[in-house]
């Protein structure tokens, strides 16, 4: 008998102004898995992340995390429960230094009473910045970091909340081949430490290298699910990527 999944999504739907942007997604992720979400722009990948992390309210369906129904919880409680995420368009706290950005995650990522007293948050923040390759940038304000540095800061900040499930939104987009390798190593290392990972990877930079399983979305629906080889050669996935049936622009990021 299989273990209970760490994340179990049933029939999740999201509406914006009457338009259905997610139409009943089912997804279950096992502890320690790396699952990638792929699909063209507007497929609903980021919306799915927003619905899991409490930034948008689902119109139907449920999200269970570690057996607990977290559907409709406010974002901070979902973070306390152990889900962290990055944003595709990085959202650093602009006036805080990189280190302070990370320390916010350390201080607030868990309920106050669950936080260990008298720990060295400064050292912990520096360790996380080092992990994502931001050593030497500790004192740089968020707004002065380059875009790729801001994206790495997103990862360090999410890790600061000590998540059991980490949602990474396009962390490898636009990176150099070496940087993609670094990101892939980081993702695998995190999984080896016990973190379950859900990736959005529109450009398929990381997917084939790290994923155990893929879920392909198009226009708010699942069109294929399975191993990377199966999904990447699935006819509907090929036509969704190559067919250019989606003239509307935008990244799927909800303002």
């Amino acid at each position, binding site marked *: 008998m299989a273990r209970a999944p760490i994340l179990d999504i049933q029939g999740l739907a999201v509406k914006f102004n009457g338009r259905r942007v997610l139409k009943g997604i089912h997804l279950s992720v096992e502890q320690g898995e790396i699952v990638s979400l792929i699909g063209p722009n507007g497929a609903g990948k980021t919306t799915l992340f927003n619905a899991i992390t409490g930034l948008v309210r689902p119109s139907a369906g449920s999200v269970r995390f570690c057996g607990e129904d977290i559907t409709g919880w406010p*974002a901070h409680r979902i973070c306390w429960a152990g889900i962290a*995420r990055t944003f595709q368009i990085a959202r650093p*706290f*602009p006036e*805080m230094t990189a280190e302070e950005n990370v320390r916010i995650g350390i*201080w607030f*990522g868990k309920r*106050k009473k669950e936080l260990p007293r008298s720990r060295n948050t400064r050292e912990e923040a520096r360790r996380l910045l080092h992990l994502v390759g931001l050593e030497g940038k500790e004192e740089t304000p968020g707004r002065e970091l380059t875009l790729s540095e801001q994206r790495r800061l997103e990862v360090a*900040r*999410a890790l600061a909340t000590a998540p059991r499930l980490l949602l990474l939104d396009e962390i490898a987009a636009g990176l150099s081949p070496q940087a993609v390798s670094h990101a892939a190593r980081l993702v695998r290392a995190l999984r080896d430490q016990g973190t379950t990972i859900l990736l959005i990877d529109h450009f398929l930079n990381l997917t084939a290298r790290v994923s155990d399983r893929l879920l392909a979305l198009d226009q708010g629906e699942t069109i294929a699910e399975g191993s990377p080889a199966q999904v990447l050669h699935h006819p509907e996935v090929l036509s969704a990527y190559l067919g250019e049936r989606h003239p509307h622009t935008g990244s799927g990021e909800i303002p």
Partner: protein
Amino acid sequence: MKKEGLRRHLLWTLVVLLALGLWPLGGWHTLLVCRVLGFAFLFAMVTVAWNLVALSGLISLGHAAYFGLGAYAAALLDHYSGAQVPVTLAVAGLSAAAYGAVLAVAFQRLRAASYALATLASVEIPKVIADNWESFTFGSLGLVGTRPLPTISVAGFAVDLSHNIMGQYYFLMTFLAVACAIHALAIHSRWGWALRAVREDERAAAVLGVDVFATRFTATVLSAALTGVCGGLYAHLMGMTEPDLVFNLHISAMPLVFAILGGRFRWYGPAAGALVLYSVDQLVLHPWLPAGHAAVYGLVIMVILLFFPKGIGSWPAPRS
């Protein structure tokens, strides 16, 4: 904060506190200056309270609602029950806090200009009630004869806070000190970091575990309570409370001007802005230019904004 900066910071604080605390004892002060500075302390407290909300990233244009509610609560309680001043002040703070709590819930989805406009409109509800419920509030005539501040005993000396202007000066200064202490917490405590995260990026703060609503709610209710107490103090100091006086747009706009000119992100900024600008306006510009003081006041504001874009509070800080 760097150690060097901290030392300098404490030194400045001490100098200003000693100057404000000791100069009236020198014997060469005038009652006018004491009286004006007393009111400057009161309006500085409103400014500090206003900034608590601003630190959460929202600009309120409706603090006259809390001020007026506080003033009316104190004046009405005094008129109908004859309650002692500490009681009237507490009720003033609580009434304003209750209104602040309602608004914090009602306006939780509003941001930026919509929030500012909604708060501006929120002044009208209590004002219209105070203006029209003549059998209870005496309408636009308002309440007169509110009891003055009482005589208190300090280390064995009786100090009449209504006639002893110096006593009044220190009394109001104490209130301001409390407000400044709360304001310092709103910048340097864990809650202060939550406010800062919410102000800089609300969605990022939320997914990192910051309870955005609770953080803002606390700031709004505390801010309203402090402003309500100021309204109550005003009612006792002036002895009269009229709708046009205490629900005045000027009271909503004043903290915005003082706080931005003083520097919103330092614990002493809003208070410093209020003390300097209010005193300069009342003690220098009014007597010197009875007709044109408003124009010069405007000029002072513009010059400060040009030369100290982060407020005059940024001046004693080390250059970076």
